């Protein structure tokens, strides 16, 4: 790892500076959404559909409205009178705010009660009578696209079937030619199951609309407050200057807090109509059944390979289950997100991906759960395929990867799907991870164990991510370009405030972004306050998700700090009576080249910026930068998992998990490692237990933490972390972003390990989550096949 260039008391890049945000959080002084109490605040509860698909014949709200303490009952009809029964989604579809015609998934919003107390609001939901006629539900995307499937979106003009979109990328003809030239074709069909980010804090809003001034202050669990302000202006028709979105401390987001949910809109409309603040906080069940699901792709991949183990081409056919509304949070040009990255870390000439999306009677969402838009699915598919190809060709899975890697000298490397990878050294990374686990020894131990009837498996994943969306020529969400910003003000005493367009949900921006400024200007990180989340007080940006904060917001911070450094050097030259070009800045000290004793500090310069300027210069030491990245960044990693599978029960236990990550320059190694451990745990969760299913009536299974299993400290394996550091050549400080790498890369490593334990029996696939009964069944059917 590169050594820090600043002393510890400045705390620039490379220091494991302690987090500034901790002080309030460890004393219970955080300010989370539900902690907000405003005078005269009312409370909202939402009535949700018990059915997956049903027509609404009528809603009787009289008894609820007559309850003591109930101030209003809102239905779709009332919302419709204000043109707010439907709202646009982030993917160009429309979504019901409160259902007027039909309900299209279990848990869909049907009515809302506003009351003086949350207990009263919840009680009154029971008194609302909804007359439903049940309709047959569509519960799989395969069923959805059959000709006799019920039409889910009958309200949508021109929609004749349940198809949401078709999308393709790559070169079909070149791919067909690669397959024709191959010695063999290795294929894999797998389902990346529906999952939910389930941050520990659910979503919520406190809408405070002043009916006299028209000022709308909306406190919201928002990962993207600025984008939400603009979308609110568009949806609700409120003038944007009167909307202030405040995203307070957020108890984890992971993509769940990117979309705008119906509850936010209803609470805002209610506050507008009633002239009082309205609070709505989801219950956990509401969170799991109605907001922001992720994944749910049925994937068929084929790899064309030679007998020497060279990959020639890749073909993918996919079907995604979109739920009832197409509300994926992703750049508008990309129907299946950045799935293009499916060619992974390998150098081959041709790929073609075909994808369809289908409406079903399930909750909408399609958020990028700790993932830069479908990259998790893509990485999983290629890493599973490469392992299976190694088995078919008869070479070691590590060797298979080494034979096909993009080589360090090939960067920048253009993939067959059009991405240009910025930098990397894949062979070094994989070899380092292999050495760490003594891989070839381990293979011998595996052999010996097999001879004793024990099943040991070694799984590798070498993933490449594409993060930091993105360059304005290609990336926008709902038309808003995916740039981001930073505003830096250095005060006369040499302390500073940095204002960001991005918004932390636990990643530690208040610390790491201050470190970027500390590195460049030499102001101690502890003297730099970082402000974010309040749209009235921060510059515009698209927010924090898809690992874009450091690649885009971090870049903006570095650029604005450098702009101020340039001005500061001129001021220093004036103070030192030297030429501008002779001034050197090192760790907060400006000195004259060749005579280091002639120097002034950043604090001297800051004071001079407001008191003693060179002729013709404008006062102040502050600026703002909007950063439009020239490319995405491409972090990568080599993960190795060792498991032991119990042949009698199908349970598996992780014996080792070694994770090598290369995210370019590490701003704060402690925080980077914390991000990786969290991401590995979520990858482990998805591979082992965490998923949402539905029964044939469309009832959501996984609606609470007893059915939707997330790992506790007891199940979570221990991780061993390694690193290499190949900087991004185009990022101002060489950083690539890391928040999602481990969630993206690790599921394939865990699943590959379990498959590897039983591969000698002929098992080539077990879908996630790799539950014991699935493992047992795979062993059982492989053994039967062998008899």
């Amino acid at each position, binding site marked *: 790892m590169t050594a820090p260039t600043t002393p510890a008391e400045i705390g620039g890049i490379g220091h494991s500076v302690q987090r500034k945000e*901790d002080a309030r959080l460890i004393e219970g*002084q955080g300010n*989370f959404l539900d902690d907000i109490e405003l005078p005269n605040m009312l409370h909202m509860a939402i009535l949700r559909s018990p059915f997956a698909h049903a027509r609404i014949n009528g809603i009787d709200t009289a008894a609820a409205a007559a309850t003591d303490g109930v101030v209003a009952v809102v239905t779709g009809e009332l919302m419709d009178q204000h043109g707010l029964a439907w709202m646009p989604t982030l993917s160009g579809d429309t979504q019901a705010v409160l259902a007027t015609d039909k309900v299209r998934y279990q848990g869909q919003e049907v009515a809302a009660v506003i009351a003086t107390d949350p207990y009263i609001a919840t009680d009154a939901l029971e008194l609302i009578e909804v007359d439903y006629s049940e309709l047959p539900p569509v519960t799989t995307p395969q069923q959805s696209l059959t000709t006799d499937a019920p039409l889910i979106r009958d309200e949508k003009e021109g929609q004749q079937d349940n198809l949401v979109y078709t999308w393709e990328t790559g070169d079909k003809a070149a791919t067909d030619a690669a397959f024709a030239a191959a010695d063999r074709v290795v294929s894999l069909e797998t389902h990346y199951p529906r999952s939910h980010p389930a941050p*520990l804090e659910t979503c919520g809003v406190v809408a405070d609309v002043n009916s006299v001034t028209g000022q709308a202050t909306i406190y919201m669990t928002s990962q993207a407050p600025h984008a939400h302000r603009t979308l609110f202006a568009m949806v609700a028709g409120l003038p944007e200057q009167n909307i202030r979105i405040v995203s307070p401390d957020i108890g984890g987001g992971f993509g769940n807090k990117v979309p705008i949910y119906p509850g936010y809109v209803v609470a805002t409309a209610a506050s507008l109509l009633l002239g009082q603040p309205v609070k709505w906080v989801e219950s*956990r069940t509401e969170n799991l059944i109605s907001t922001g699901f992720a994944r749910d792709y049925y994937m068929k991949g084929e790899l064309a390979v030679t007998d020497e183990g060279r990959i020639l081409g890749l073909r993918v056919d996919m079907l995604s289950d979109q739920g009832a509304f197409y509300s994926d949070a992703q750049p508008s040009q990309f129907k299946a997100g950045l799935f293009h990255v499916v060619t992974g870390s390998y150098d081959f000439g041709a790929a073609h991906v075909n994808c369809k999306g289908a409406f079903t009677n399930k909750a909408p969402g399609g958020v990028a759960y700790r993932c830069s838009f479908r990259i998790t699915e893509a990485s999983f598919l290629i890493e599973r395929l490469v392992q299976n190809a190694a088995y078919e060709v008869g070479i070691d899975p590590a060797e298979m990867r080494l034979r096909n890697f993009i080589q360090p000298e090939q960067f920048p490397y253009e993939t067959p799907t059009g991405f240009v990878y910025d930098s990397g050294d894949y062979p070094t990374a994989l070899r380092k991870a292999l050495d760490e686990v003594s891989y070839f020894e381990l293979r011998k131990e595996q052999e010996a164990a097999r001879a004793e009837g024990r099943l040991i498996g070694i799984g590798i994943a070498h993933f490449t991510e594409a993060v930091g969306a993105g360059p304005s020529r290609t990336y926008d969400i709902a038309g808003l370009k995916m740039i981001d910003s930073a505003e830096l003000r250095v005060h006369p005493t040499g302390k500073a405030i940095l204002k960001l367009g991005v918004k932390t949900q636990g990643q530690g921006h208040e610390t790491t972004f201050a470190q970027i400024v500390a590195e460049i200007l030499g102001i101690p990180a502890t003297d730099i306050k970082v402000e974010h989340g309040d749209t009235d007080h921060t510059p515009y940006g698209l927010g924090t998700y898809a690992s874009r904060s450091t690649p885009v917001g971090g870049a903006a911070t570095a650029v604005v700090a450098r702009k101020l450094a340039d001005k500061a050097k001129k001021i220093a030259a004036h103070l030192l009576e030297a030429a501008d070009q002779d001034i050197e800045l090192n760790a907060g000290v400006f000195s004259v080249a060749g005579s280091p004793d002639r120097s002034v500090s950043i604090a001297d310069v800051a004071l001079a910026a407001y008191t003693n300027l060179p002729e013709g210069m404008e006062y102040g030491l502050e600026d703002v930068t909007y950063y439009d990245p020239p490319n995405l960044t491409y972090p990568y990693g080599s993960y190795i998992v060792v498991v032991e599978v119990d042949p009698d029960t199908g349970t598996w236990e992780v014996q080792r998990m070694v994770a090598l990550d290369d995210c370019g320059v590490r701003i704060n190694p402690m925080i980077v490692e914390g991000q990786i451990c969290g991401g590995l745990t979520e990858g482990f969760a998805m591979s082992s237990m965490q998923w949402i299913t539905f029964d044939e009536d469309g009832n959501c299974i996984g609606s609470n933490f007893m059915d939707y299993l997330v790992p506790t400290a007891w199940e979570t394996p221990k991780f061993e972390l390694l690193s290499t550091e190949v900087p991004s050549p185009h990022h101002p400080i060489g950083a690539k972003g890391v928040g999602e790498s481990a969630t993206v890369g690790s599921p394939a490593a865990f699943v590959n390990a379990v498959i590897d334990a039983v591969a000698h029996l002929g098992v080539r696939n077990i879908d996630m989550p790799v539950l014991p009964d699935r493992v047992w069944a795979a062993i059982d059917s492989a053994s039967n096949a062998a008899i």
Partner: protein
Amino acid sequence: MDINVTLNGAEHSADVAPRTLLVDYIRRTAGLTGTHIGCDTTSCGACTVLLDGKPVKSCTMLAAQAQGAEVTTVEGLKTAAGLHPIQSAFTDDHGLQCGFCTPGMMLVGAALITENPNPTEEEVRWAISGNLCRCTGYINIVKAIQTAAARSSAASESTSETNGS
């Protein structure tokens, strides 16, 4: 009904509806919002407080059941002497990210090290297995609880040495 509890060392009473949950009493009646709510099935532990020194999930009891008891929330960890060792250890070992699980985790950790001054990693993992964290992967939480235990034992040893001399 009248509720009387000792909340973080001070008497607290209020007249609340009998069905008021302890977590709502703490958060809404007493205004101490460091205790969080993360689920509705007693699964997550974000609402953990100490009731007479033992960790309980305050979302699953009525305020009435705490009648007369001593309730400690995250706001009560710090004393005049400064931060509780568990609080400084969570910062030092990066045991928190979003901080939503942190009050519950720290209270479970504080109770554990009172009972077991030198817990093994397994013992810590078992003790916090009723509390979910979605951010950290637990590894640094475990470390922080062990750090706090080690620091507390070191501190009490040095006190007893001083007392003995």
